[in-house]
């Protein structure tokens, strides 16, 4: 348990970490790095993909060019074989040309030209090339023939438009036999057919293949209808076959790769999820931080509240073990919290003498029968000092509504008690003083009243004496003496009046229970007796009835009891005892009041009952004198003797028992 103020309570929040911000910065940087890495990776993959595709494109194109050139070379060879000076060559031309044409290497037509450039043979038959009729074609043809002859090797013409939007170009293969130029085998290529024949299907799946002239105009294309990525195209010169012809391959947009897309989407999704969870985490942390700081403030507030309390707080579990004490309580009793917490009864701060009573009270409280208005208990400080505490108990209820112990508030009311005590004593002193003042006033007034006739008597007497001495006659002197006698009478009246005043009491005949009177007087003295820790022992052997004045007798008994108590002021507390006895004795009751005080010095014994004799600083010296007068007025006797053991005094009051 032990949520005691100096230990770190489990409920006490920690200080909010100062490294929190740094942590968040780190998290942010890490996330940004992660996102950057992902993007970079994606970009890199894409780039390498593009490059790979480009490399593929280039190698494909190179392969295509190779293939084309190979086809063209094959055709050149085949064409060269078709032309010969041998006689069977004319007959063999057509079948041979058909075979070459059917081989599907882009040739559309084959023409045998003689040394002058005249057509000797042409295949397929019946199909005359239009372009041969065209002037420019003819010129080109002638130029080509010449070129071929002069170069001695196959020569290609430029491309020219053919039927149906097709483009054509020619190859002139000079044929030498036996070192003599015999003619030219001319092949007319259809660009479209060449492409159709030479470009394999898998290539056209990937690329759009087109032939362009020098100006970049597209002559023929092999393509599917599909979006084309123009920027990624690759151009390859197709020269020598055509002057300025170029082969352009443009890759189609690659088919979307589902795996890659899913991966990308997953990556982006994951990043978003991470970002979101970070944000949620951060919000949660912020809320937690706010809650923590609020809790911290609340805790500090409660701690300050608790420390500022002047009221002692103490919590005990159901067995009575101390589980919590606050600073004020520790200060009050003088034991530290460490020493008190975990302690089980008996507690060190209980007064030994009142242990039994305290334990009983304690049991009652634990049983839930403690007085609701609180109770006063005398507790002991560590230095042995005893103080009075006002204690309130309340059940300690835990979070689930179960009672786990008792919480007590303890207020040190010693000062309050002391103040009350002082106020009471002040009041008593005031009353005594006012009694004194009143008495003084009365005495003064009486003295004056008595002085007046005395002064007059003295005056008259002296005058009479003076007159007698001066030889006056008796008649002259007599009036002065008569007046003197008159004043004597007046003085007598004053004295009678005083006497009547002093004797004004007529309550001397009430039957009274003496034990009740003693109890009443003891009750009056109770607070003082408790304060002085005087142990009172009563021993009433009889319960007698006496006849007298209740107030006077009670006052007399009260005086005797108070004297006894005051006689023990310097006696050690443990030895302070007051024994009150009532004994019957041949028609009389003997009330004896014995103290264990200092006793009465022998030289004071004689003067003890004299009026105005006192051993007390505040005393009037009337107490015992009045007591004796009261007792004697009740036909009793008052005396004292020192105790046999030499400690203290015993006062005896002997009063006649009333006859019933």
């Amino acid at each position, binding site marked *: 348990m032990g949520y005691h103020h100096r230990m770190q309570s489990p409920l006490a929040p920690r200080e909010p970490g100062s490294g929190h911000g740094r942590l968040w910065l780190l998290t942010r940087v890490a996330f940004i790095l992660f996102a950057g890495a992902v993007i970079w990776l994606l970009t890199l993959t894409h780039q390498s993909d593009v490059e790979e595709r480009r490399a593929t494109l280039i190698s494909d194109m190179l392969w295509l060019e190779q293939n084309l050139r190979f086809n063209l070379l094959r055709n050149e060879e085949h064409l060269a074989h078709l032309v010969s000076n041998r006689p069977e060559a004319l007959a063999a031309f057509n079948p041979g040309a058909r075979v070459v044409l059917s081989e599907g290497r882009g040739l559309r037509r084959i023409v045998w030209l003689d040394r002058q450039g005249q057509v000797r043979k042409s295949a397929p038959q019946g199909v005359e090339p239009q372009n041969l009729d065209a002037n420019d074609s003819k010129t080109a043809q002638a130029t080509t023939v010449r070129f071929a002859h002069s170069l001695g090797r196959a020569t290609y013409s430029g491309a020219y438009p053919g039927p149906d939007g097709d483009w054509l170009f020619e190859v002139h293969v000079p044929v030498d036999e036996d070192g003599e130029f015999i003619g030219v085998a001319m092949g007319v290529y259809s660009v479209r057919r060449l492409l159709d024949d030479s470009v394999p299907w898998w290539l056209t799946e990937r690329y759009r293949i087109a032939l362009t002239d020098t100006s970049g105009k597209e002559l023929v294309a092999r393509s599917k209808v599909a979006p084309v990525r123009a920027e990624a195209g690759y151009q390859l010169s197709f020269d020598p076959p055509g002057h300025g012809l170029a082969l352009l391959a443009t890759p189609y947009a690659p088919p979307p790769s589902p795996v890659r897309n899913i991966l990308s989407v997953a990556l982006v999704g994951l990043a978003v999820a991470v970002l979101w969870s970070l944000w949620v985490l951060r919000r949660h942390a912020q809320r937690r931080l706010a809650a923590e700081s609020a809790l911290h403030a609340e805790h500090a507030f409660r701690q300050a509240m608790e420390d500022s309390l002047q009221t002692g707080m103490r919590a005990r579990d159901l067995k009575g073990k101390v589980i919590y004490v606050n600073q004020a309580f520790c200060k009050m009793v003088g034991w530290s919290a460490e020493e008190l917490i975990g302690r089980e009864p008996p507690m060190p701060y209980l007064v030994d003498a009142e242990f039994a009573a305290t334990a009983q009270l304690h049991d009652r409280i634990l049983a839930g029968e403690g007085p609701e208005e609180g109770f006063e208990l005398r507790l002991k400080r560590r230095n042995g000092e005893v103080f009075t505490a006002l204690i309130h108990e309340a059940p300690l209820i835990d979070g689930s509504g179960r009672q786990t112990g008792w919480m007590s508030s303890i207020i040190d009311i010693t000062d309050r008690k002391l103040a009350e005590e002082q106020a009471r004593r002040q009041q008593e002193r005031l009353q005594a003083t006012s009694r004194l003042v009143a008495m003084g006033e009365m005495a*003064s007034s009486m*003295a*004056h009243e008595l*002085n*007046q*006739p*005395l*002064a*007059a*008597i*003295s*005056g*008259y*007497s*002296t*005058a*009479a*004496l*003076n*007159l007698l001495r*001066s030889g*006056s006659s008796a008649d002259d002197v007599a009036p*002065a003496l008569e*007046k*003197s006698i*008159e*004043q004597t009478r*007046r003085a007598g009246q004053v004295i009678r009046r005083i006497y009547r005043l002093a004797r004004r009491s007529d309550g001397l005949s009430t039957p009274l229970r003496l034990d009740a009177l003693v109890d009443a007087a003891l009750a009056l003295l109770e607070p003082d007796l408790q304060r002085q820790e005087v142990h009172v022992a009563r021993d009433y052997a009889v319960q007698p009835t006496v006849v007298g004045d209740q107030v006077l007798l009670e006052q007399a008994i009260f005086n005797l009891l108070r004297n006894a108590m005051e006689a023990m002021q310097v006696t050690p507390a443990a030895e302070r005892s007051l024994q009150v006895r009532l004994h019957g004795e041949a028609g009389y009751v003997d009330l004896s009041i014995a103290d264990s005080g200092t006793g009465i010095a022998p030289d004071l014994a004689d003067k003890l009952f004299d009026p105005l004799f006192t051993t007390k600083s505040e005393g009037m010296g009337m107490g015992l004198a009045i007591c004796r007068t009261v007792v004697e007025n009740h036909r009793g006797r008052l005396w004292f003797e020192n105790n046999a053991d030499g400690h203290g005094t015993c006062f005896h009051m002997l009063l006649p028992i009333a006859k019933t």
Partner: protein
Amino acid sequence: MTSACPPACAHVVDDDPAVRDALAWLLKSRNVACRTWASATDFLAQATPQLRGCLVLDVRMPGMSGTELFDRLNEVQCTLPVLFLTGHGDVPMAVQAIKGGAFDFLEKPYDDNALVDRIIAALAQDATVLADLQERERIDKQLELLTQREREVMERILAGKLNKVIADELGIAMRTVEVHRARIFEKMNVRSAVELSQRLGRYGA
């Protein structure tokens, strides 16, 4: 006892008629003139500045007390000697009364004849005071008769200067100084400069 007022007598102020009467008897038995007053207010109402003699005051009286009356008389600068009688010896009050100029303070019970002796002494003191007053008045009247020049000459005579010096100082003839001197002695009713000095010196003229 009559209330007739002789030129100087003992004035007894006491609220108690018996005490008053007894005191009157006592004083009469010693041949001291006296007048009795029932209260301090009575006395104040009827007393005149010309009243001479002495005052016997009971301290404790209903209405105006003895000490109160004494203070009132001091206020009007009455020079009557005052004897206090008190039933309860209040020392601080007695001291204050004596300091305030009371003649005496007697505590009851007192010796009656001793009281009368003190009263006689008080009357004698009053008589001396009265005589002094009268002498003072006489001197004042005589001084008024002197001329200005005579007064100047008298001042120098009292300063112990010789006639010649006086004549030089005042710028008059020595003979004239002698004439002034004779006139001064005559007017002041003295025979010598020493006597003149004594008469005036006693009153600080």
